């Protein structure tokens, strides 16, 4: 996936150039036959993928951070710089990937755009227990997911009587009635400031 602000094999432009030209040793990515200027053009294009212009919000970043870990309870599900939950996306560099308006929409209407890799599932075991969480993996015979308390579950499908997938439903609540308008501004400002590890 190239539409991310940071590429795992190419943290800087020089490295990205070499990756395109020489491929990645030990993987299936081959070297290219492009000219030097063509490689630079491809590199420049790849660099534009997944990035947004700096987010802007009138809110207070510091207060936003306090709400994120306190009243909002966001850290229970989201990680920043290695700390937090794993139910939702890692927000360490969310300010690099989402504009302020998108962040605000996600806070007010989380179900409007649920990433496929955070699909909500509900399973019922043959002995009648129900578990809900965010899917991690699924194959023909098994399913794994993480529940709201970050607990990992793994089931063979023959242990289950029902599996319900809810692609348009987010486990995240709407913050419309949880936060004030000013508090929303603060959280958006804080999220917009997250540009990755210092």
């Amino acid at each position: 996936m190239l539409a991310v602000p940071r590429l795992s094999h190419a943290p800087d432009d020089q490295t990205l150039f070499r990756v395109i030209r020489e491929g990645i040793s030990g993987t299936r990515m081959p070297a290219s036959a492009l000219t030097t200027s063509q490689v630079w053009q491809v590199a420049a294009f790849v660099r534009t993928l997944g990035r947004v212009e700096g987010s802007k919000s009138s809110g207070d970043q510091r207060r936003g951070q306090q709400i994120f870990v306190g009243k909002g309870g966001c850290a229970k599900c989201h990680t920043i710089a290695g700390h937090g939950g794993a139910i939702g996306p890692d927000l360490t560099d969310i300010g690099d990937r989402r504009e302020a308006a998108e962040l605000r929409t996600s806070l007010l209407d989380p179900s409007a755009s649920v990433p496929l890799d955070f699909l909500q599932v509900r399973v019922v075991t043959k002995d009648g227990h129900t578990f809900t969480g965010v899917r991690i993996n699924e194959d023909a015979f098994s399913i794994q997911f993480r529940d709201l308390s970050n607990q990992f579950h793994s089931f063979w499908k023959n242990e289950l009587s029902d599996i319900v997938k809810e692609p348009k439903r987010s486990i995240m609540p709407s913050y419309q009635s949880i936060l004030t308008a000013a508090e929303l501004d603060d959280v958006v400002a804080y999220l917009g400031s997250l540009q990755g590890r210092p």
Partner: protein
Amino acid sequence: MKGILVLLAAGVVLHGQVPYDRILKAHSEPGNWLTYSGDYQAHGYSALDLINTSNVVALKVAWMYQIGTTHHFETTPLVFDGVMYITEPPSDVTALDLRTGRPIWSYRRSLPKGVIVCCGQVNRGLAVLDDQLFLGTVDAHLVALDLRTGRVRWDVEVADYKEAYSITVAPLAIKDKVIVGIAGAEYGIRGFLDAYDAKTGKRAWRFYTVPAPGEPGNETWSGDSWKTGGAPTWVTGAFDPESNLVYWGTGNPSPDMIGDDRKGDNLYSDSLLALDADSGKLKWHFQFTPHDVLDMDANQVPVLLDANFRGRPRKLVLFANRNGFYYVLDRLTGEFLVGTQFAKQNWTSGLDERGRPKFNTAAVPSPEGALVYPDDDGTANWFSPSFDPKTELFYQNVREKGAIQKRTHASYEPGHLFMGANRLPIPGEEPWGALRALDWRTGETRWEFRVHTPPWCGVLSTAGGLVFSGTMEGDFFAVDASTGKLLWRLQTGGAIWSNPISYLSESKQYIVVSAGTAFIAFSVDR
């Protein structure tokens, strides 16, 4: 461990924490594998016996996991609380669900171009402490990952990869610290062993394995040769909680294979070090191969043993060395007790009463080429031995391979090879290998199981009376721990470059090993 119950509801995995006390008592939970060698004593032994000499014939593949790179897959996993944690080359980590073998999370490291590693961009494993995993990377960083998510807690530079410092070793977590070694002695690094605060990543101590002027041992280096003296620390050591000593082997002096410009014994290269775990201060050292010009790294796993020896209880360390000798030392003092040849060698006519070798001056690299046994990959290497307390045998894979060593020259340039010999095959001679069972008290071979070519696989012995190992041709096999008789084998289709381990999941015992690009779990149906 018949009768062990898994007290979990089906499907629910309890992500636990692994405090120091739990690692200290690893023997009380034989269904898990909490450190690189299974315990601080580094026995590489499993007390599980559900798979045993009676039913191993029915061993079959339970699941496989495939990696996406073609580098050597040298991982030794950690297993606890329903999850397995493996490293993937070059410096990645994946958590696997024990029930299904499916990945739970992955950490994919962003590596700079130009990482320099002599012998493959590999990684051998992880350490765990509390709620964090610790990974050393080939660009010479130490990284702490959240156990539940694989997300980065902290990431610190251990050394500069552009000068060919790299990390391939599995760290060892002790108390509140993470011990990690370094590689790069083919490039003139100055070796060290480091400890980092597990919570913050701040360096707690560093022991340089090549002493600076004014420090004891610097007199064993001529001129400024200590500055590029090598002595790396790229295989995980052991820990004795009672004496609070960390035992860690060191590798070759630099320049490798040529010693003209580093006259002297070149301490602490090719040695076993005993360091205080809190301060990193040296308690004692034992140098196996002084002034090495044959690449006789002592980067092997030291095995700690408390036993009656020559009429009295002693605290010992057992060490099967790359130089072809098996050693027993007193681990409180470093006193040499046993040194027995366990593979073909011609570089020494034997050891004196203090364990110092008497060198054969004909078996050193020369312009016309010298015949040397073993070659510079050694008889033992990084792959782990295993000690079985029931048979009292020390199991070691052995490489029977010599070489014609032709002397060249070496000049230091940061980040470039700093070696003074080329290896050529011996005409008409086919190298081979063997899994050998050594009497731990004497080092004498009790039995051997021959394999076609010199192996790069570690050894696992189990309470089921079995010893597991593998070959470069892809055979994974089990032999009777008492006799060496072959009881089971499977052709995996990929060379085996790793240490097998064993664990328990839902009351079933599993054996796991990597082969080629596959990670394979084996079990027997009940």
